[in-house]
């Protein structure tokens, strides 16, 4: 074997890698917040909304879950302008990621809502809480507690999947790696280092979510 690995370029690349990682983190934070909110609404709508809404949510979930994220991203970024909707790459990436994640988490949140015993709702109603209060204060916290592990996994999966938004030139971690390897001619080393950074990010993200979840969800709920 004549090839020898060379990581000499790394020193000058720390800034670019850090910027890319920061963008990846920003994307996943925005997506997590927006995606979770949408999925709570969608899961609730699918259970108690009007018939047409239930059907629309089902179609949305099935379409997203049965097509590749990269195709969804291209459709939004390249396809929507022909309808007159022109999006900035970052906005398109966040939109695609949010729509994708919300479809998966709608199913997850839905399963959580179904897992809350009916007696909880009845007890809350008997105490004179309004339907919205019953949902927000009684049902939702218990549902979130049940689904937290699944939700955490989905967020980590989405973070890893966000690497493909480099394809529409969003300057996140993978995009910076593409640029770096074009400059250093060290593609293997570059992608290896960046893959390890993703691995670190996914470990940290999981720890962080589990920690936050334990603190906030177990406090108010029995």
């Amino acid at each position: 074997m004549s090839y020898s690995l060379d990581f000499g370029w790394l020193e000058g690349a720390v800034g670019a890698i850090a910027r890319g990682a920061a963008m990846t983190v920003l994307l996943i934070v925005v997506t997590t917040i927006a995606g979770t909110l949408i999925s709570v609404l969608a899961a609730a709508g699918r259970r108690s909304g009007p018939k047409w809404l239930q059907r629309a949510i089902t179609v949305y979930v099935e379409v997203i879950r049965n097509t590749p994220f990269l195709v969804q991203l291209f459709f939004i970024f390249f396809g929507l302008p022909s309808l007159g909707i022109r999006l900035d790459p970052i906005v398109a990436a966040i939109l695609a990621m949010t729509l994708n994640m919300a479809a998966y988490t709608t199913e997850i949140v839905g399963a959580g809502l179904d897992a809350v015993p009916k007696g909880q709702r009845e007890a809350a109603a008997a105490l004179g809480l309004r339907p919205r209060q019953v949902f927000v204060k009684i049902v939702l916290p218990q549902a979130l507690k049940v689904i937290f592990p699944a939700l955490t996994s989905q967020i980590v999966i989405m973070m890893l999947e966000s690497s493909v938004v480099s394809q529409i030139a969003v300057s996140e971690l993978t995009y910076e790696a593409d640029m770096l390897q074009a400059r250093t001619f060290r593609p293997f080393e570059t992608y290896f280092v960046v893959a390890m950074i993703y691995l670190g990010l996914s470990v940290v993200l999981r720890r962080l979510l589990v920690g936050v979840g334990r603190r906030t969800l177990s406090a108010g709920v029995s």
Partner: protein
Amino acid sequence: MIEFTFWDILRNLMFATRWTVLLSIAAFVGGGIVGVIILFLRISKAKWARRFASGYIALFQGTPLLMQLFLMFFGLPMLGFRIEPWTAAVLGLTFFASAYLAEIWRSGVDALPRGQWDAGASLGLHYIQELRLIILPQAFAITRAPVVGFLVQLIKATALTSIIGFEELLRTSNAINNATFEPFTVYGLVALIFFVLCYPLTQYARSLEARAAAR
């Protein structure tokens, strides 16, 4: 500029779909074979083997598939292999699939009652026989729904191989789009084709799940 009618676009996409399907099958079969090996290591009695398998699974589940494909594509030539997009795509997806399948099957092995192992041992079976005759058939049977679910994930994952230059459905559609400037139609059709491939499998996984829950 060449004129493309709607049917030209559709026909070209249908031709490219073969490669998506073929790649999915190759990666699923390859991933199944490597996955069984990883599963053996994961449930082995030797600590180093279990550690290695957990590390392998954590590595492939904790890094983006796109990075794995890039590392295949750029890494294998360094080991002296002549690499083409097809080889990198099949190998990359095979390793990716093996990690997920091994983990799914391990959950199946873990779900079996301890008594199954004891019963096998009391019949005088040795370890490999126990696995082959008692444990694995049951573990495979109870994990059929998640395995079909993963196949859907794998089919969708083949779209990423377009980035390393494998001529599957999405890469063909990029080329068609560059010629026709009709991204809405082209990517809409691509999404539809993927949906037609995946949706029946999703429904099948669901029915398996429902059947397992009813038992």
